[in-house]
């Protein structure tokens, strides 16, 4: 199901298209109403391209073809799209010292997340796995000259930490280039912005994507904004609660100091890389975010808020204006 609506109270009219992809909410905002239909088509084209190469739940995705072919341990030639998706994932790993690691596929499968997320709602039978470090991102070898990939036999990739944000960046850039208007693309709260109107795009910040009672809001005029947390994508395994953020060191869900981390960056991929890494790093994330100069808002498990590198403090009073509700 998808909806369209216009926002009000702005100097520049914005039109919203809303739908659902990959078990998550998709929002598209353009500043030119006449561009919405074409922008929607571009968005879905980009999402389809990413889905065909990187969806690990899709039997015919190129990623799963790579997994099958890589059992021999030889280099496999891949499409430019998958090559770029892998390069983006390895860059994220390199820039976070391996905190964001794409080789967590087998680890997250051991936790039962080997199917579309809605199928986990009833819980997964045990046993609960023991700690086992993931193969590590350096075991994935890319050869740009020949567009080949080498995986160690048994390595399964999960590009979830970067592919969604990468898709948001690609879609926003493609729409802005072709339609020449301001664009915001949000894929499950991973937000990419191009050609923002004066005053920027206004975005609520909450534990859960789409929460109409977001406790704070910010405006952004470029790049990306992403939020990682443990508040939404969780299930039970053998009766124990687990979530989707995996610690590469032990292959188990991270036991983070944070409930939610939101980061603003020059792109959505970089924002999501940093927010995911911050969940893994725990308390060390504050110094790390300051060091790399990325504005961020971190919420402890008790709900205390910490802001770094220029992210504005939460308002003392609750926001007077709440999120625009989705039209049924």
């Amino acid at each position: 199901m998808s909806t369209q609506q216009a926002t009000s109270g702005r100097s520049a009219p914005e039109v919203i298209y809303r739908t659902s992809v990959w078990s998550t909410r998709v929002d598209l905002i353009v500043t030119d109403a006449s561009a919405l239909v074409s922008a929607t088509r571009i968005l879905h084209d980009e999402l389809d391209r990413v889905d065909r190469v990187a969806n690990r739940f899709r039997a015919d995705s190129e990623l799963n073809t790579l997994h099958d072919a890589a059992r021999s341990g030889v280099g496999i030639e891949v499409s430019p799209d998958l090559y770029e998706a892998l390069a983006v994932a390895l860059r994220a790993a390199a820039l976070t010292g391996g905190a964001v690691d794409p080789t967590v596929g087998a680890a997250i499968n051991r936790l039962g997340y080997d199917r579309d997320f809605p199928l986990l709602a009833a819980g997964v039978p045990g046993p609960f796995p023991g700690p086992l470090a993931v193969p590590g991102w350096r075991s994935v070898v890319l050869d740009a000259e020949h567009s080949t990939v080498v995986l160690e036999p048994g390595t399964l990739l999960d590009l979830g930490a970067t592919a969604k944000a990468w898709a948001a960046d690609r879609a926003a850039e493609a729409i802005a280039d072709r339609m020449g208007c301001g664009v915001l693309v949000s894929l499950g709260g991973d937000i990419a912005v191009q050609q923002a109107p004066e005053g920027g795009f206004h975005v609520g910040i909450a534990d859960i994507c789409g929460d109409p009672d977001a406790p704070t809001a910010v405006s952004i005029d470029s790049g990306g904004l992403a939020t990682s947390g443990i508040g939404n994508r969780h299930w039970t395994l053998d009766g124990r609660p687990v979530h989707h953020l995996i610690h590469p060191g032990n292959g188990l869900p991270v036991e983070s100091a944070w409930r939610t981390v939101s980061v603003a960056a020059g792109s959505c991929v970089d924002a999501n890389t940093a927010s995911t890494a911050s969940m893994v790093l725990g308390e060390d994330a504050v110094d790390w975010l300051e060091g790399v100069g990325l504005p961020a808002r971190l919420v402890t498990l008790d709900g205390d808020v910490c802001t770094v590198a220029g992210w504005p403090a939460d308002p003392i009073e609750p926001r007077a204006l709440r999120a625009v509700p989705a039209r049924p």
Partner: protein
Amino acid sequence: MVPSGSLRSIAVMGTPRRTAGHPNPDRLVRLRRDAALERVRSVTKTIAVASVAAVAVLGVYISRAVPGHSSTPTGAATYPSGGGQSTGGGTSAGPSPSSLSAPNSPPAQSQQPTPVVSGSS
């Protein structure tokens, strides 16, 4: 036939020992020389080990102190990185791993309606 070397050995072995109360002066000199050499060897070894350790510590310190050096998390060593192969085996891995890009300007607080809410999904 017995080799001549063996006969010399037997002859040496057959030399009577001097009594403990009257040590051979040559033997004392040799012992003192050997002890001194042993001390020198020990001191030299200690200096060599200390030098190597100091160079290693200094190297680590400098690698962290140079401005603009790696800004990876301090906990990086706790994460597996695989078999130590360099990505791409000498060829490019794609996007530059130079740094995470900062926004043109930090977010500003907003009181406007927000049609989009960022949160975990």
